[in-house]
């Protein structure tokens, strides 16, 4: 297993820049998720790590070794693809053994490794079938088996779950997580699904337009998103971002924002003294996660309920503030549309953003 360092990596096709100075470093055994919408450059980055695409600038290091000019086969990596990329004319066994065969590993060792991987992934009975005779989930297992037997320094996963149905996706997610824990492998995993990112990753890199917007642990990314883009992309329902004002910065920081039923004043928002001084009496963007609203009849936020969506474990209440819909996630409660009420807010969880640059204020 190995560390992975991506230093100032750039990639362009002609005049089109797909990656602009990407910097990411992870330790041995970490699970890095590259998260972003399609076209953000995450798959290109993965292909560059794999050696399937040339690098325009910068360095990729696997285990402290620069691999820029090494072909994929010499990088000691394994990869699981979105379409699984199983060789259609070979049986499952032949698929798994193909890479070992090329590397000149003896038939005996190949059989042993295949058997072990098959047992681990519970697909011993499938070894003599062709890929076309397998279900989606089974193909997925074979693809993972093909990666495991190689004992690579680095596993690469390219949206491996996006072709599965919802139920299977959750099962396989658990399976991948278990695999990571058992193998202690270093993994790079590309997805556009933020739940996968949150559940699997030890480090997340949220990407957009070829730039890493935020790199950190899933909890950091969730709690203290680097900018409004990350704030909106991670979490469901997304973080509410409201136009507000910094009204007091001596003592506890207080922000104010308009709702349909008047002004809400929330104090005790975390903010550094420098930022507080800089934004005093100026407009800020106020980021509040839905679950950070509380039932509190004496709370700071006056509102009229526009819509109620019970989900089972909790209830989503929609109201409007500053012309935008705001979603609050509350314990199941009986409340009807049109009700006027007051909610509280956990001030210490609020994140403020610069309205011009949309980056987080520390």
């Amino acid at each position, binding site marked *: 297993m190995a560390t992975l360092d991506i230093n100032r990596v750039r990639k362009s096709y002609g005049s089109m820049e797909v990656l602009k100075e990407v910097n990411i470093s992870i330790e041995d055994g970490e699970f890095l998720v590259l998260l972003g919408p399609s076209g953000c450059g995450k798959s290109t980055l993965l292909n560059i790590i*794999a050696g399937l695409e040339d690098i325009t600038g910068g360095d990729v290091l696997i285990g402290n070794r620069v691999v820029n000019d090494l072909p*994929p086969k010499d990088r000691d*990596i394994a*990869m699981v693809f979105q379409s699984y990329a199983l060789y259609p004319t070979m049986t499952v066994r032949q698929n798994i053994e*193909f890479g070992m065969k090329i590397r000149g590993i003896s038939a005996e060792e190949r059989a042993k490794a295949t058997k072990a991987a098959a047992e681990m992934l519970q697909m011993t009975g499938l070894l003599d079938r062709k890929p076309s005779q397998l279900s989606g989930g089974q193909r997925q297992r074979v693809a993972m088996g093909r990666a495991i037997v190689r004992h690579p320094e680095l596993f690469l996963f390219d949206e491996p779950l996006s072709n599965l149905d919802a139920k299977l996706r959750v099962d396989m997610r658990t399976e991948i997580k278990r695999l990571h824990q058992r193998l202690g492998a270093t993994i790079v995993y590309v997805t556009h699904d933020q739940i996968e990112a949150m559940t699997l990753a030890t480090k997340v890199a949220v990407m957009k337009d070829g730039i890493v917007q935020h790199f950190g642990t899933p909890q950091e990314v969730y709690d203290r998103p680097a900018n409004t883009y990350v704030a909106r992309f991670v979490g469901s329902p997304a973080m509410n971002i409201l136009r507000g004002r910094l009204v007091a910065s001596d003592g506890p920081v207080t922000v104010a924002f308009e709702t349909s039923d008047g002004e809400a004043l929330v104090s005790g928002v975390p903010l550094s003294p420098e930022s507080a001084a800089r934004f005093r009496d100026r407009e800020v963007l106020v980021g509040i996660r839905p679950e950070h609203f509380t039932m509190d009849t004496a709370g700071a936020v006056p509102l009229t309920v526009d819509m109620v969506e019970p989900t089972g474990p909790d209830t989503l209440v929609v109201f409007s503030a500053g012309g935008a819909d705001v979603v609050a996630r509350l314990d199941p409660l009986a409340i009807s549309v049109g009700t006027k009420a007051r909610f509280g807010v956990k001030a210490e969880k609020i994140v403020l953003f610069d309205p011009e640059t949309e980056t987080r204020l520390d």
Partner: protein
Amino acid sequence: MATKSLARQRAMGQTFIYGVLALLALYYLTPLWVMITTSLKPLDEIYGGSFIGLPQTVTFEAWSKAWSGACIGTECTGLKPYFINSILMVVPAVLLSTGLGALNGYVLTKWRFRGANLVFGMMLFGCFLPYQAVILPMAQVLGKLGLSGTIPGLILVHTLYGICFTSLFFRNYFITIPDELTKAAQIDGAGFFRIFFSIMLPAALPIIVVSCIWQFTQVWNDFLFGVSFTSGSDSPITVALNNIVNVTTGRKQYNVDMASAMIAAIPTLLVYVTAGRYFVRGLTAGAVKG
């Protein structure tokens, strides 16, 4: 009542459709029928006025004459040596053009480089080249190479122009195979040729059949190159057939003509009957996306 008349209408429509289809089938089958029956009749019966009917007396005399006795020019060897010429020409030409086409299609889809599309476009135009525009220089070059009027010369010509078609077939087939497959193989450590032979070729079996069948019929049925670049005993079978048929001296031996035509047609007809599906795919390949 309403449903009954609807059912009747439908039945009438069905009868009409089947009637038209059957008539058309007759139109397409008649020439084949006439060729076969005529080839089995003695000459007297033909001149006696039997055109479409079954032969009164079945004789294979015309077939044996066509095969080994009919005169082509001054040589009365029948079609046999020319049939062999055609086989000697077809087999290598088909194998070479299919093999090269497979490699080209593989490179053009899985190892794309700057200008690959231009290369493909240039090859594609070659499929539609009226060969009259290249026949003169080709005759000169074959002469310079000492291949004028030889089977190897024809193999070269057919391979060259066949590449355009076979590359198109394989390119359009390989483009449907996900690129991830070659990426996975690269990561498994397979190189250019390993991927080609272990993964692409086994997956390409249907298009290999299409390409072989297409090339086989094209090369076997070619007349222009044969008549332009060969003469006498080096000719392929189509040229020999045309010479038999166009003999103008003496009483015309229509039964021998028809037997000769059948002999020239049998190999491609056999291929068509046994592998028609692949044959049609080759035919429509030029139409369904370039």
